[in-house]
Structures are given as structure tokens and as C-alpha cells.
């Protein structure tokens, strides 16, 4: 008896769900869900508004709305894998987009589908220091000088965290250092990190609100916001070399085909590459893919050597495996030796 009741209840719930879906599809309106990472809220809010206005002007009659979802990049990817119906994903790293592709939700050579390897913008890791840079921090080696406290999130749980690690590693091996010197450098560096916050925003709170640390290694866009908001109490320092962070965008094939939203989802991502889209991206301190737009905003994007992940590993997943994952270089740093 109870199983019968249970199956009826499940059927009713499913029926209700189907009805909602059909209703939205029949009205001439499309709703997209963009699943993104934490600090991009303001960026997508402005991009969405701009895209919707443009789309409705071009294709009158179809109303579009875009919902945003934000959170830690890899937990967002897991949500999509577990069934969150994202039409597009705009996550912090290739690792997370690729994990979704590995489960068959994004198909084929997805990174090749959009210009510039599906990267409408890139970013990097820079330094934020206290007013006037009292510890004289200019470059990576300055971080490990005695008495410098470093704030950066946990590489194990945060995108900002592992990008910091990759940057630190690259700053040694790409400037003539050996692997052993690189291990030595990152070991020293993480010994000077008093708190490993679980995410990028947590580190910002530790550095800004709690006043802990001399330097904060953060996403470029976060660093710029942080300094703007501190109104003179903090400064950005650009090291001569840092990682090129690659937040890819992709249409989630399995979801858009089921929801019949592919055309709009593709138009949405293409819009990011238009001049209007690129200008919004630059305004929010992400480095636009379009050279002309980047040049127009050169004042806010100082030149530095942005090295590719391919210079220190095969790709992002390989680097993560080598350096961060269980048994990687990061794990050896904290191993207690003489306690």
C-alpha cells in the first residue's frame, strides 16, 4: 500500500514539474540560467541587462531573462553535474568546466567553439598591500622576507587559492629557478600564511576587516575592488610575472537541448565578444579578450608577463593534480617534521 502511495506522490510531483516547464516554453519567453563563480555577480548583472536589451531589439517578440547563480567555482560545477539546469556555465577555471564536460553534459571540443578558446576575458593574481607598502613588496621573492604575513585562500578549496600557488611556482621556474628551488619557495611562502581561508571572499575579510597580514594575493578584479573600497588604505602591486587565469564560458549542451534554449544561450555567450560586452568586462576589471578594447583600457591593466598554465604543466587539471590534489606538492609543505 505504501509503495503505491509513494509512486503516486512522486508521479504527482513530476507532473507538476512538467506543467511548469511546458508553460514557460509556450509563452514566447526564454529564461536562461547562468551558473558562475563568486566574484562575478556585478559583472553578470550588467552584462545581462545589456544583452537582454540588445536581444529584444534584434528579435522583437521574444522576452529573455537571465538568472544568475554564484558560489565557489567547483561547488557550482558539482551542482550542474548533479542536475542544476544551467544553460551556460561561466566558471573560474577550465578544471571545473572540464569536469562537467567529462560527465557528458558539455560535448565535443567545447573550448574551440567560441573565439579565443572560449575565453571572453582572462584575469590574474596580483598583490594588495597596506597603504604606502611598508614592507616594500614588489615581486614574488619579497613575499618570503622574514616578518611578512601573507593572506591567500586555501589552494585545496579555492580557485584563487590554487592560482596563487601556480603563480608562485611559475615565478620561480620560469625565471631560471629549479624545481627544488620552487618547492623551497612555496614551502617558505605558505609557512608565512597565518590563516588559510576556504574561499576568496573569506581571505578578503581576513585581510581587510580583521587587519591581518601585510599582503593579500587575490584575483585582479577582487584586488581592484578591494582597493577602491578601502579609499586609500590599501594599494595594488603588480608583480612582474603572474599566472594567466582562464575562466572559460560554455553552453551546457545537455540542458539547452532539453530546454530548447540553445539559440538564445549561444547568442548570449557570443554577446560577450561584442564591443559593448567587452567594454563592460573591462569596466569590472577583467582583462577583455579583444585587443582593441584592452588597449583602450590600458590604463587600468598594467602590463606584466602573464604566463600560461602550459608553461608549468600540461593543462589546468594536470597542474591541479601535480601541485594541489592529494599527494601533490602542496601536501608536503605542512607535513610535520620536527614536532
Amino acid at each position, binding site marked *: 500500500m505504501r509503495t503505491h502511495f509513494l509512486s503516486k506522490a512522486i508521479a504527482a510531483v513530476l507532473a507538476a514539474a512538467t506543467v511548469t516547464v511546458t508553460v514557460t516554453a509556450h509563452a514566447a519567453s526564454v529564461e536562461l540560467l547562468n551558473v558562475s563563480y563568486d566574484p562575478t555577480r556585478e559583472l553578470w548583472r550588467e552584462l545581462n541587462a545589456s544583452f537582454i536589451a540588445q536581444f529584444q531589439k534584434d528579435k522583437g517578440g521574444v522576452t529573455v531573462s537571465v538568472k544568475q547563480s554564484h558560489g565557489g567555482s*567547483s561547488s557550482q560545477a558539482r551542482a550542474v553535474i548533479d542536475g542544476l539546469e544551467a544553460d551556460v556555465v561561466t566558471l573560474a577555471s577550465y578544471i571545473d568546466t572540464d569536469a562537467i564536460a567529462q560527465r557528458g553534459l558539455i560535448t565535443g571540443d567545447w573550448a574551440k567553439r567560441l573565439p579565443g578558446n572560449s575565453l571572453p576575458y582572462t584575469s590574474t593574481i596580483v598583490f594588495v598591500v597596506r597603504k604606502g607598502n611598508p614592507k616594500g613588496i614588489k615581486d614574488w621573492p619579497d613575499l618570503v622576507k622574514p616578518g611578512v604575513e601573507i593572506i591567500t585562500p586555501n589552494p585545496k578549496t579555492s580557485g584563487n587559492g590554487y592560482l596563487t600557488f601556480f603563480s608562485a611556482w611559475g615565478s620561480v621556474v620560469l625565471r631560471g629557478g629549479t624545481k627544488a628551488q620552487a618547492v623551497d619557495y612555496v614551502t617558505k611562502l605558505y609557512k608565512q600564511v597565518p590563516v588559510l*581561508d576556504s574561499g576568496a571572499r573569506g581571505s578578503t575579510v581576513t585581510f581587510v576587516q*580583521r*587587519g591581518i597580514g601585510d599582503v593579500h594575493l587575490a584575483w585582479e578584479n577582487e584586488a581592484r575592488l578591494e582597493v577602491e573600497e578601502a579609499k586609500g588604505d590599501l594599494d595594488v602591486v603588480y608583480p612582474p610575472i603572474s599566472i594567466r587565469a582562464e575562466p572559460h564560458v560554455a553552453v551546457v549542451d545537455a540542458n539547452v537541448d532539453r530546454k530548447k534554449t540553445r539559440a538564445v544561450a549561444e547568442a548570449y555567450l557570443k554577446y560577450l565578444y561584442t564591443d559593448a560586452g567587452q567594454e563592460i568586462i573591462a569596466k569590472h576589471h577583467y582583462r577583455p579578450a579583444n585587443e582593441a578594447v584592452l588597449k583602450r583600457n590600458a590604463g587600468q591593466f598594467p602590463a606584466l608577463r602573464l604566463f600560461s598554465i602550459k608553461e608549468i604543466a600540461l593543462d589546468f587539471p594536470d597542474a*591541479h593534480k601535480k601541485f594541489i590534489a*592529494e599527494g601533490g606538492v602542496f601536501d608536503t609543505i605542512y607535513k610535520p617534521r620536527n614536532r
Partner: protein
Amino acid sequence: MASVNRRVLPGFSLSLGYTVFYLTVLVLVPIVACISKASTLTLDQFWAAVWTERTRAAYLLTFGTSLAAAAANVLLGLLVAWVLVRYRFPGRRLMDSLIDLPLALPTAVGGLVYASLYVKKGWLGQYLVPLGIQAAYSRLAIVLVLVFIGLPFVVRTVQPVLEDLDPEAEEAAASLGASRWQAFRRVILPPLYPALLTGFALAFARSLGEYGSVVFVSGNMPYKTEIAPVLIVARLQEYAYGEATAIAVVLLAVSFAMLVLINLLERWSKGDSAHA
């Protein structure tokens, strides 16, 4: 209908059916899912995931801080419950409702506030840090925030029992020549044992699973202040679902064993106080 199971209220089979259904859906299915995910690993993989120097340090920390916090809560909770039940003073009602606040507050808020208070430049930290007391980003910080989270459990389990306790029993003890300490230990405390144990178990279990507040105060330093749930999140970051659930299964198993043990203790103490 001349059944031996005849009850005053009808509907035993229906209510049992619902109980089993809810327990299955809410508790059993997730646990089974967790175990089945972990069982996708081979025994070697499982062992490699759950038994490393780092996970051992994390288990020790998680269970150690939870035990310490639950023990502190038993003392503190008993005191608070005693004051609330036995004395009448202005602001008592307000104090009484304050007790439940940690349950309502998102624990991340608790963690953030505690960390801000105890850092070098915080309201309390500015006095404590010069004395060498690091109550933010340390093990002490974890215990403090767990005490905060677990307090209502002890107070709320002890309070009703204390209310039922007849003050005349203490007066009788006093008139029979018992000292204050004897009266407390032999007359007041024994009936409270089961409630104290329940409160302890609840606070302890609550602390084992706590993540939101602890990540903000602990500093998450591997081997030192990294709790086991942080390791689970770290493994999820690698999309190593099997390994992540393996650690969860270990936590589940140990917690379950400890709760069973506490339940047994509780039953034993009830029997003990009944014939005492």
C-alpha cells in the same frame, strides 16, 4: 478488534508507516547513498583516503574539540539552567530567550563574529593576544565557537528536569545534616544525570558536524587546525566523490558509535538514579 495491541488512540499502523517512511527518506536514504558512494572505492583506496597522517590529525581535532566543547557546555549549561529555574530576577525572560539564539543564527555568522572579536585588533583580542592567548585561528577558537553552538542543547534538556525537582528535597537533606556540597552531589545531581548526558550527546553530535562557523575561526592549517569536514570539501574540489564520502563515512561511523555509547550510559544512569 480484541487485540492485545488495542490502544486508546487509533491509527497505530498509519503513524508507524509515516514514521518509517520519514525516517527512511530523511535519514536512511542519505546515509545509504553516502555509504554506497564510498563503497565504489576498493578497500585499499578507502583506507588510503581515510587513514593518512593528515586525516588522523583532523579526526583527533574534530573529536577532541567536540568533546571539550560538550564537556564545557555541561558545566556552563547546568549553571545557566540552574539560575534560570531557581532564581527570579529582572531580565530572566530575556535571558531565557537568548539561550536559543545560537540555534537560529546562521553558524557562519557566529564564526565570523568570534573571529573578529578575538583577533589582535578585535574587542577582546586586543587584551588577550598580548597575554599570549590566541583565541582566533587556533584550537581554542574552535572550542569556543563550538561551546557557543552547543549551549542551548544542555540548557534546554536540563531545564525541564530542574523545574520538576522539588526544592523540599534539598531542604530535607539540609535538615538531615547534609552539607551544601553533599546535598548538591547526592540529592540534586543524580536525577539530572540522564538530562545532562542527553545534553552532552546532543551538543557533542552537533559539534562533530559543524562546518560553517569553524572554517571561519580555525585558520584551517593542515595538521593543526584543520577539521575533518574541511578535508571532505578539499576532496570534493578534486571531484574525488568516493574519497570525500569515505571520510564522511568514518565520521558517521565514529559518531554513531559514540552516540550509542552515550545512550547506553544514559540508560544505565537512569536505572542507577531510579533505585538510588
